[in-house]
């Protein structure tokens, strides 16, 4: 797939309510926190022509996101990877707590934990997806888990496929979930914190994280959230 990024004017994304746009009506009330997403727009531009394209949403499943993609003929897979990670860590802690003294091998290292988690997570065949919506989850994974997660995603993405990820330029004040409202609008839904903000990625770190992808493009909104699009 050719990667000819179209120039965008006024790429800053506002936190204000999006202006009215064509497309499906937002499922959320008007007061909801909508964000114009140039990254999403580019993401859809990249994968839009793929017949029966497959998209992996790494956030929770939402009706609006499902409807958006299936209406366009996509097949959507959903795996709330951050919640799965948290559940996994909780389970590991519980195992440690209940293990008898001298039983087992003790606490796993962060890298071993990440490897163990990925044994059962994101278990799809290689090149399964043309697009992956990663949202801001990398901000919440530790330094050992994040690269491993990207490696797994790299194998899951079809050549020419795209990954959309968000990175906060400062620790997020609130934990949000994301769902698609329309082709250029994302709704931020405040949610109970299931993971603490782990780190703030610098630009170079983001590029290094996705070094196996052949091109990238990013947009920084007024809210200092960087939307990054990576093409394999």
């Amino acid at each position, binding site marked *: 797939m050719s990667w000819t990024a179209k120039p965008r004017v006024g790429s800053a994304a506002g936190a204000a309510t999006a202006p009215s746009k064509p497309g499906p009506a937002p499922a959320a009330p008007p007061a909801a926190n909508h964000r114009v997403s140039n990254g999403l727009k580019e993401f859809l531009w990249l994968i839009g022509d793929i017949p*029966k394209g*497959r998209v992996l949403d790494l956030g*929770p*499943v*939402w*009706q609006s996101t*499902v409807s958006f993609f*299936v209406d366009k003929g996509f*097949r*959507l*897979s*959903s*795996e*709330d990877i951050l*919640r*799965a990670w948290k559940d996994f860590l909780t389970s590991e802690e519980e195992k440690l707590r209940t293990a008898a003294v001298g039983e087992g091998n003790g606490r796993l290292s962060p890298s071993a934990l990440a490897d163990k988690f990925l044994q*059962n997570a994101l*278990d*799809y*065949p290689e090149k*399964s997806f043309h697009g992956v919506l990663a949202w801001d989850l990398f901000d919440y994974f530790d330094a050992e888990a994040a690269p491993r997660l990207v490696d797994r995603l790299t194998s899951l993405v079809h050549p020419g496929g795209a990954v959309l990820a968000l990175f906060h330029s400062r620790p997020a004040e609130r934990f949000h979930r994301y769902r698609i409202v329309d082709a250029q609008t994302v709704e931020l839904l405040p949610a109970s914190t299931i993971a603490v903000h782990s780190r703030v990625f610098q630009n170079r770190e983001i590029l290094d994280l996705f070094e196996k992808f052949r091109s990238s493009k990013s947009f920084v909104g007024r809210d200092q959230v960087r939307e990054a699009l990576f093409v394999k």
Partner: protein
Amino acid sequence: MWRKPTEVQPSSQPYASPNPSPSRSEEVPKSSSFQPQGQQTPSASSLSASPSSAPVSSNVSKISSGLKIQGDVSGSADLYIDGDVTGKIRLSNARVTIGPNGHVQAEIEARDIVVDGSVQGNLKAGESARFGSSSRVVGSVVSPRIGIDDGARLRGKIETVRAPQPSKSSPVEASSESDDLSPVASGVKSE
């Protein structure tokens, strides 16, 4: 929307099917524990028919909370599951509802599927699939229409297919557009 059938029951029918249907054939090869839990449905059997306020059918079977079934379930009566089911559920012309207490480890094929409990397995609906806010699903979903309430947890593939036009007799055929279920099937965990 489906309502849990708790109303008036003919209490003198322990294995009752108020509307016995010749096509109804729930098969329970291995009935591991058929202990009635004093539910409002008086039936002592694992599968009890009960009247329903659902507009789709008055022929509803119920697997109550506390019951466990291993094996295949097939037929044409609507089914409400609030217990544990492991196996395969194939009710192509009927509705399957997984109640809030229901735990199902099975592939489900039905005309309509409503999930408020926990399901591990692939789901194929001929007309619609609905996931309530308390639903927990690991598996693929193939259905012409899909409804998802906020709070639902779904891990797997979601795919819509065209509904069968002339009749409801073969909803599974409607998924012929679906080239495969393997990517998601492989993603289904059996922890």
